[in-house]
C-alpha cells in the first residue's frame, strides 16, 4: 500500500506536484499575494520570500507537447524549456507576477528572451547573472548581482527587503532543507517507508507552495513515516538517480515497478536542492546567499572547477544510502549534463558502482526501451 492510500498529507503534496496552478497558489493569490516564477535550483528563493512573494519553480508538469514552443526553439533544443515554455504560451503560467531566469545553460538563458518576446503576461522579468566558476572573486561578483536583483524586486513589488527579513527567509528555507534532509535520511534504512517516486512528488511540491505550509506538511509527513511500516522491498536493489530536471515521478515509478527502489537522487528538483544550509545568522545575508550559491553548493554542471565537489556529493550519497547502482539521466541536447555523465561514468566505474546512463526527452517517449534497459541494469546490480 502506497502513501497515496495511507497519508492525506502526502496526497495533498502529490496533488500540488501533479499540476501547475494548485489550490495553495490560488489561495495565496486570492489573499492578494504575488507569485514569483523562476527556473533552476540555484535562484535564491530567499529573496522572494523576504519580499513577501511566493516562489514557484517553473516546470513542465502536465505538458502534452511542444507545438507552440517549437516556433521559438528548434528540435535541437532541450525539451525541458520547450515543454515549460509551451505551457507559458498556453497561458498556464499566467498566474505568475514575475519571472527570474538565471544564466545557467544557453537554452534556459534564451528562454528569458523568448518569454519577453512572446509578450507573456508576466509583469516583472529579470535575468540573474550567476558566475560559472567557484571562487572568492565569484562570490563578490555574485553578491553584487544579488543586490541588483533585490533592488529590482523591491522596486517592482514595492517591498522593502531588510537584512532582518532576509535572515528570516533564510532560516525558513534552511528549515525546509533540514526537513527534506530528514525525509531523505528515512530512506537510508533497508526497507524505506517512502518510495523514490513519492519522494519526487514531495520535493516538487516544496517549490510550488508557501514555505511555511510546506514545512508544516513535511513535519506531519515525517511523523507519519516515522511510525509507518516499510514499503515491502527489503531485498530490492537500491538505486540512485543523477541528472537534471527530474520533476516527474514516472522515471522512478518505472524503476520501482521493475523491482528496484530509488533511495536517493542527485537531481535539480531533488537531492541537490537540500544539500547544505546557509545559516546560522552572521553578518551580511546577501553575502551568505552568494557564498552558498558559489562555494557551498556549486552543483550545476555549468560551474567550472566544481566537478570534484559534485563527484564527491554523489559518492557520499552512494555510501550513505548504500546504493547498489546509479541511473544517470540526461535530457537530449543537454551539453552540461552530457559532459558530467561522461565523467561520472568512469568515476563510478572506478569506485565499483554500476551505472546506467540514458538520454531521454522531458516526456520519456520510449518507455518500452527504457523499461528493458532498467530490467537489464537491475540484473547487473541484483543483490
Amino acid at each position, binding site marked *: 500500500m502506497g502513501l497515496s492510500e495511507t497519508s492525506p498529507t502526502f496526497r495533498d503534496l502529490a496533488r500540488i506536484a501533479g499540476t501547475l496552478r494548485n489550490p495553495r497558489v490560488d489561495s495565496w493569490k486570492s489573499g492578494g499575494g504575488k507569485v514569483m516564477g523562476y527556473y533552476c535550483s540555484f535562484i535564491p528563493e530567499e529573496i522572494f520570500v523576504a519580499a513577501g512573494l511566493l516562489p514557484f519553480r517553473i516546470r513542465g508538469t502536465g505538458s502534452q507537447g511542444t507545438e507552440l514552443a517549437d516556433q521559438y526553439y528548434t528540435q*535541437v533544443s532541450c525539451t525541458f524549456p520547450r515543454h515549460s515554455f509551451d505551457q507559458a504560451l498556453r497561458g498556464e503560467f499566467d498566474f505568475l507576477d514575475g519571472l527570474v531566469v538565471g544564466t545557467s545553460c544557453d537554452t534556459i*538563458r534564451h528562454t528569458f528572451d523568448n518569454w519577453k518576446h512572446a509578450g507573456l503576461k508576466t509583469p516583472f522579468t529579470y535575468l540573474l547573472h550567476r558566475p560559472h566558476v567557484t571562487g572568492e*572573486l565569484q562570490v563578490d561578483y555574485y553578491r553584487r548581482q544579488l543586490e541588483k536583483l533585490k533592488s529590482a524586486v523591491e522596486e517592482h513589488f514595492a517591498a522593502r527587503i531588510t537584512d532582518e527579513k532576509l535572515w528570516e527567509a533564510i532560516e525558513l528555507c534552511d528549515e525546509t532543507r533540514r526537513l527534506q534532509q530528514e525525509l531523505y535520511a528515512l530512506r537510508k534504512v533497508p526497507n524505506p517507508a517512502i518510495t523514490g517516486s513519492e519522494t519526487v512528488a514531495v520535493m516538487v511540491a516544496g517549490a510550488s507552495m508557501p514555505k511555511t505550509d510546506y514545512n508544516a506538511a513535511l513535519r506531519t509527513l515525517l511523523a507519519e513515516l516515522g511510525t509507518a511500516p516499510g514499503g515491502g522491498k527489503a531485498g530490492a536493489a537500491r538505486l540512485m538517480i543523477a541528472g537534471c530536471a527530474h520533476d516527474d515521478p514516472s522515471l522512478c515509478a518505472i524503476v520501482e515497478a521493475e523491482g528496484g527502489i530509488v533511495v536517493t537522487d542527485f537531481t535539480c528538483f531533488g537531492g541537490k536542492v537540500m544539500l547544505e544550509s546557509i545559516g546560522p545568522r552572521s553578518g551580511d545575508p546577501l553575502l551568505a546567499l552568494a557564498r552558498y550559491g558559489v562555494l557551498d553548493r556549486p552543483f550545476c*554542471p555549468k560551474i567550472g*572547477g566544481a566537478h570534484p565537489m559534485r563527484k564527491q556529493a554523489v559518492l557520499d550519497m552512494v555510501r550513505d544510502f548504500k546504493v547498489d547502482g546509479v541511473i544517470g539521466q540526461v535530457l537530449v541536447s543537454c551539453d552540461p549534463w552530457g559532459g558530467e555523465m561522461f565523467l561520472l561514468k568512469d568515476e563510478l566505474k572506478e569506485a565499483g558502482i554500476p551505472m546506467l546512463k540514458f538520454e531521454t526527452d522531458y516526456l520519456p517517449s520510449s518507455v518500452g526501451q527504457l523499461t528493458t534497459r532498467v530490467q537489464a541494469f537491475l540484473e547487473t546490480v541484483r543483490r
Partner: protein
Amino acid sequence: MSDKATQMTMTTPALASDAGVFDQLNREANGILAELLPQKLLEAPKGGKPFVIGSDEVLPEIVSAMDLYYNILTVTGATAAGMPDGAQTIDKAIEMGVESRLCNAVRCAMYYLYSPLMPMPDAIVTTNSPCDAVDTLGIMMDNYKPWAHVPKFHLDAPHGREEEDFVYFGKQLKEMVLFLEKATGRKLDLGRFLALCEESNRQGALLAEFQELKRAVPCPVDPDWARRGFRLSRWIPPGRPEVTDILRRLVAATEERVKAKQGMDGVDEKIRFLWWDVSPVWAGKLFPRLATELGAVCLMDYYSYAAPWTVIDTTSEESALRTFGKRYLIDTPMTRQAMHGADFWIEDALRIVKEFRLDAVVMPCHIGHKDLNAFPKIARDACREAGIPFLFLGCDVWDERYMPPDKVFETMKTFFQSVGLA
C-alpha cells in the same frame, strides 16, 4: 600535410586574386596559418617552452609576453573537423560516448584529449565561454585524469556587458597571470606585453579598415579575407610584425580595387548576404558556387564580423587587462554572439545589413550552438519587421553529412529566387 589539405582547411578558395599581390598574400597567409594544422600544433610544444592549454581563446597577448606555447583545444578540434579525414575523427569521438548532440568541433577536441593525442601541458586555463559545448570541454580538460596533477585556472566570463563585468573579468586575468607565473616559472614582461597589445591594436585597426572597404558595391575582394585576418591576428601567437605587414598590404591592395570600382573576379555580384554563424568548414563547396552561379556573396560571418575592436589601453597593466577583458567579452567572435542576449545578436545582424548594404540574413543555426537554436523566432521576427529576407537553415558547420553543401546551395537558391533576389 598536402597543399590541398592546407588550402581546404585554412581558407575558402579565393574568389578573386589580383594575379600578383593577392596570390602573394595568399601564400604568405597560408604559410602562417598552417601553424594551426593539428599536426603542427601537436609538435610545437616539444620546442622547450612551457606549454599552456586553454579551452577557448582569451589570452594570446599574455601568453606571448610570457614566452609560453599556447594551444586552444577548441581550435584544434575545429581544425581537425575541417581536415579531409574530419568525418572519421567525428565518428571516433561519437564512439567515445559523448552526448549525442554536442558540437562536433568540441567532440573532435575531446577525441584529441582522450585518444590521447595532446602533449602533457604545464598549465590549463579553462573558461565557461563562449557556449555550453566549450564550457563542457573545459570541464573535461579540468578533470582529465592523466592531467590531474597539472595546475588549473578557471575563468568566469560573465554574460553582462557593463563596466563592472569588464572590471570583474580583468581582475580574473590578473589572477590568471599570477597563476601562470607560478605554474610555468615565467614572468610577465610588462614592456613586452604592452608592446604586443600595441601591435595588436595596429592589427585591429587594419582589420577595421578592411571591413570598411568591404562596404563597397561590388565587394572588391573575397570577403573571407577578414576571417583569415582574424585568425592571423588572434589564433597565431599575436603581435607578429609580418602579420601586420600582410594586413597592411591587404588593405592597400583592396583600396586600389575599390578605387577602380572592381568587384571580385568572375563574380557578377547581385546578392549580398549575411551568414550569421560560424563559417562552415565546407564553405569551399558552397560560397564560391553561390558567388559564381547566383552572384550571391557572403559578406560576413562570425569570424569576419564588423565590430571595431576595443583598443587595449596600454597606460598600465591594470588598464590593459581591463580593456583586454572588454575586448574578449564584447569583440571576440562567438563570445560576442553567443554569450549575450538575443537582442545583441539581432542588433549586430541588422546593423551589418544596413552598413554593408546586404540583401538577406541567413541563420545557419549550427546544431551545436544551443544558444542559436533557442531563438530562431526572435531572429526571424526582427528581420521581418525590418523588411529583410531571412532564411533559417539548421546545419552542422563542422560536418557536411548533416546537411550536404549541395542541399544548402539548393535551399539558398530557392530562397533567393522566392524572395525575388535571384
